[in-house]
């Protein structure tokens, strides 16, 4: 299974609809400080069901919605869609292409969709758990991951191994 495409609209600094096409091998994302690189990684976490504000660098859940700038007003909704190639059957769902979407509103509510069908958060999490893309599986190493790993005490490092078991 691999990522095919990421679509963002209204998510953090991606106020206007943006589409990234991934290749199966290696995709590099470059740019100046504060341009939106880590925000792209956050979008992938968020659409896969991340609930922990700490992991999204937000204080409240509505902080993922474009908050406006000196030249633009804020938006009311953030929407991210991740399209996955499933031709290897990694996800236990009978589609060769799977799209997972999330919409977030300023009320704090989120809607989830799999292949454009409304589902609950737990349906998204269950699907990913079986594909080994659960939140703690190190599929996404954030910008302070190295620091965090180095700061772990010996007992805490044990927990890393236990989670991989």
């Amino acid at each position: 299974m691999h990522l095919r495409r990421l679509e963002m609209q209204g998510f953090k600094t991606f106020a206007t609809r943006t589409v990234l096409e991934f290749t199966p091998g290696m995709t590099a994302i470059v740019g100046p400080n504060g341009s939106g690189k880590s925000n792209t990684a956050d979008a992938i976490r968020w659409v896969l069901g991340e609930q922990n504000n700490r992991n999204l660098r937000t204080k409240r859940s509505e902080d993922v919605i474009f908050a406006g700038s000196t030249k633009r007003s804020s938006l009311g909704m953030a929407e991210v869609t991740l399209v996955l190639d499933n031709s290897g059957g990694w996800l236990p769902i009978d589609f060769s292409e799977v799209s997972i979407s999330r919409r977030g509103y300023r009320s704090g509510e989120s809607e989830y969709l799999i292949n454009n069908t409304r589902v609950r958060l737990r349906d998204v999490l269950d699907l990913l758990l079986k594909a080994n893309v659960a939140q703690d599986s190190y599929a996404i190493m954030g910008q302070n991951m190295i620091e965090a790993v180095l700061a772990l005490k010996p007992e805490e490092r044990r927990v890393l191994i236990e989670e991989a078991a």
Partner: protein
Amino acid sequence: ISAGFTTTYDLVATQFAHYFTLFFGGGDARLELTPPEDAATSGIEIMARPPGKRLQSLALLSGGERALTAVALLFALLKVRPVPFVVLDEVDAALDEANVGRFADALRELASGTQFVVVTHNRRTIERADTIYGVTMAEDGVSRLLSLRLSDLPPDLN
């Protein structure tokens, strides 16, 4: 539970030693269980020996050496519990040219079996990518994405 831990621990320890030597172009490293080793609560110590140096605890290494050792451990975990894709956000930030080169070579090899999305400032990492996206921000506070070629990047990019 404990047997599962021991098996996983041994696998991770082996992979960690392998990745350390690969990334550093030499030297060796190992994980050690803190005494008493058979306790369900013993911790994991990291001992590392960069090429030419003596074995010492992680705390005594340089900033770049520590970062590269942490990456070796994270890759060992990924090898033991494979995931279909990995997003790396500037894990190569503290590395000098030589270390970035080895790290990027290792990424390139792993990328044949696992998909990588890598946020980076390092030219050597970018050189090994199949696709490059540039993100910029105009004065309106909105991110914009551009598809780039290597030749689009300024020559003195980090």
